[in-house]
């Protein structure tokens, strides 16, 4: 089992009445609410939290990309990954990821990921998201009808950039470059493992199977809501004749651990409420620009009950559709609902380990991306949560699948003895 420490880097100081007074946390979020002096401290705390996760033995630390978003302050995850590549030494660095169609030329992704792979000594996991509608179509103005065509062309260009050994010319529909010749090249050969974060689109599942990438379902609604999507994924893998190796799937889960269940409920109520009630206030009008969801996915949804169920929780985007669902469903969830429905796994170490074991086995994923800082959770509580998880939960779940399956999609770094050794104390 790979245990991966995921950070969203949320702005932690949205006003209490944010949900009543503001329409959306994303795209047209009120920029007057942003205080750069507070953000200075938030960024430093978040980086420290990721470094701490490495120190206490998480297998990976994860950053991601969002734009015009008050729950995700990483327009450029590569900047964060860069500093983490220096300050950490063991954990894989998972950039989840770069929205390929937003980079012009897309070879920029090939270059920066190659830099990160060199700098980290081959610890990079390269995430290639299409990106949410909010990030790509609204904040970055990409045409929703062209987004996936541009994404796939960018992917092909990046792969050729990483694997061809001579300079080449690229004559694509959307990109033309006379000289493609990356310098640096990635350290991992032929390239870092590629992971694809996605919602419940059947095409994404098929494509992941086709090119042998990891599929990461990044839902904010937990393992109970995620069952339909993951079941759909594994059914599709079976249809395609792929072995059910759990390491080809990753799943995101919010977790809060304390000595006792009551203590956990008391400690994590506020940050969970902050996240689900303020951070996830996404206006439904941004969730489904025409063309973002392909006609093929629409048709598949209409025909497949499993995919239809999955669509209810994933939609065009895990966050957006979920938010739209909350909007349409009579207001935000109560903390009790969040716990009951498994959005957040809360409890004593044994309770959390038991629920996660159930989730891991039911949904059948070998890479658990765990969110231990969320909402307005301060650094001391985030550190406590991280330590409790690392010390008391991790030993109970880290062995799952280890003897049964081989992980073919994990970074292969340089031997530690061969890496740069300057004093990092």
């Amino acid at each position, binding site marked *: 089992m790979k245990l991966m420490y995921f950070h969203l880097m949320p702005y932690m100081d949205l006003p209490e009445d944010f949900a009543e007074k503001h329409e959306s946390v994303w*795209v047209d979020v009120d920029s007057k609410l942003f205080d750069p002096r507070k953000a200075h401290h938030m960024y430093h705390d978040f980086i420290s939290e990721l470094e701490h996760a490495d120190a206490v033995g998480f297998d990976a630390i994860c950053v991601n990309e969002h734009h015009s978003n008050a729950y995700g302050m990483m327009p450029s995850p590569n900047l964060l990954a860069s500093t983490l590549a220096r300050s950490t030494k063991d954990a894989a660095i998972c950039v989840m990821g770069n929205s390929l169609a937003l980079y012009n030329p897309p070879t920029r992704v090939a270059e920066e990921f190659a830099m990160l792979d060199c700098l980290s000594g081959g610890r990079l996991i390269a995430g290639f998201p299409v990106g949410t509608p909010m990030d790509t*179509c*609204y904040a970055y*103005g*990409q*045409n*929703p*009808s*062209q987004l996936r*065509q541009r994404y796939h062309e960018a992917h092909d260009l990046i792969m050729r950039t990483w694997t061809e050994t001579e300079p080449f010319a690229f004559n694509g*529909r*959307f990109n033309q470059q006379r000289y493609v010749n990356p310098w640096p090249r990635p350290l991992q050969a032929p390239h870092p493992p590629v992971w694809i974060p996605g919602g419940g689109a059947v095409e994404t599942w098929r494509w992941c199977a086709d090119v042998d990438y990891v599929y990461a379902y990044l839902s904010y609604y937990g393992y109970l809501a995620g069952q339909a999507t993951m079941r759909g994924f594994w059914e599709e893998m079976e249809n395609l004749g792929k072995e059910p190796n759990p390491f080809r799937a990753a799943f995101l889960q919010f977790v809060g651990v304390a000595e006792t269940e009551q203590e956990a409920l008391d400690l994590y109520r506020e940050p969970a409420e902050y996240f689900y009630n303020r951070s996830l206030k996404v206006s*439904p*009008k*941004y969730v489904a*620009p*025409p*063309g973002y969801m392909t*006609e093929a996915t*629409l*048709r598949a949804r*209409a025909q497949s009950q499993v995919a239809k169920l999955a669509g209810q929780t994933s939609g065009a985007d895990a966050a957006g559709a979920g938010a739209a669902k909350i909007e349409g469903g009579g207001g935000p969830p109560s903390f009790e609902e969040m716990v009951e429905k498994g959005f957040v796994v809360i409890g004593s170490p044994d309770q959390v380990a038991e629920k996660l074991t159930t989730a891991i086995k039911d949904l059948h994923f070998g890479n658990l991306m765990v969110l231990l800082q969320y909402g307005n959770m301060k650094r001391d509580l985030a550190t406590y949560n991280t330590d409790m998880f690392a010390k008391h939960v991790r030993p109970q779940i880290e062995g799952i699948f280890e003897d049964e399956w081989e992980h073919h999609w994990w970074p292969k770094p340089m031997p530690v003895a061969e890496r740069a050794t300057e004093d990092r104390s």
Partner: protein
Amino acid sequence: MSDSTNSNGLKISTVIVNGAEHRVWEKGSGKALGFLPGLGGRPRWLPLFDALSEHYRVIVPSLPGFPGADPSHLSIDDNSDWICACLDLIEEAGLTGADMIGACLGGSLLADIAAHSPKSVGRLALIAPFGLYRNAEPLPDFFAQIFPEQKKLLCHREGAFDEAFAAPEDSNDKEEWDILRYRGMEAAARYLWPFGDRGLEKRLHRITQDTLLVWGKEDRIIPPSYAQAFAEGIAGTTQIELIDKAGHLADVDQPDAVEKVLLEYFNV
């Protein structure tokens, strides 16, 4: 090309553009008068078309990806692709050199066709065309709206939208119609995203045709003041007609009033 004619005398044929099928409606006799539809396409033969067909041979082609056409918009990448596809469509539909009406995004396509290929079209009537975006009077984001809001933005008259955009008469599969409608919105987004400015302002001076600009006074998508900007840029003689109680889809909202200004204009 396959033809059929229904009991109302409406001829339905199919032409091939970019290897894909596009429906062409035709009714009436005499001089040809073309109509390029806008947002949503025109899934139903409308009262306005009937009224015009008493005086003209009215020809209404479906634009790529819109109701009545294959999803050929997916092979269209930039503005010149759109212009070429529409020029092909105009030729295939027998509209070369004909007087033409273009509504909404059909209006900006028609204006750009006239700028690129003046001999392909005759006199123009543009009903609230897209194509310009002025910082002083920005357009609202039509796409970032939930569906009930979009309906309100498009039409002023209560019920007008539902009349014009109900499932076509020959459709009995609601799920399929929902998908085709979605496809049409995707095609519109492919051409317009984010707000329809494809540099037309730089080419307006190449439009030497006489041009009628028709605008709903209650247009909530493109303010009627944009009519003046088009009139100032177009080299040909221009005339502006504002329609009472009409929104962006003025031809759907107030077909009688729009018919009147169109007939007066084209009959001159």
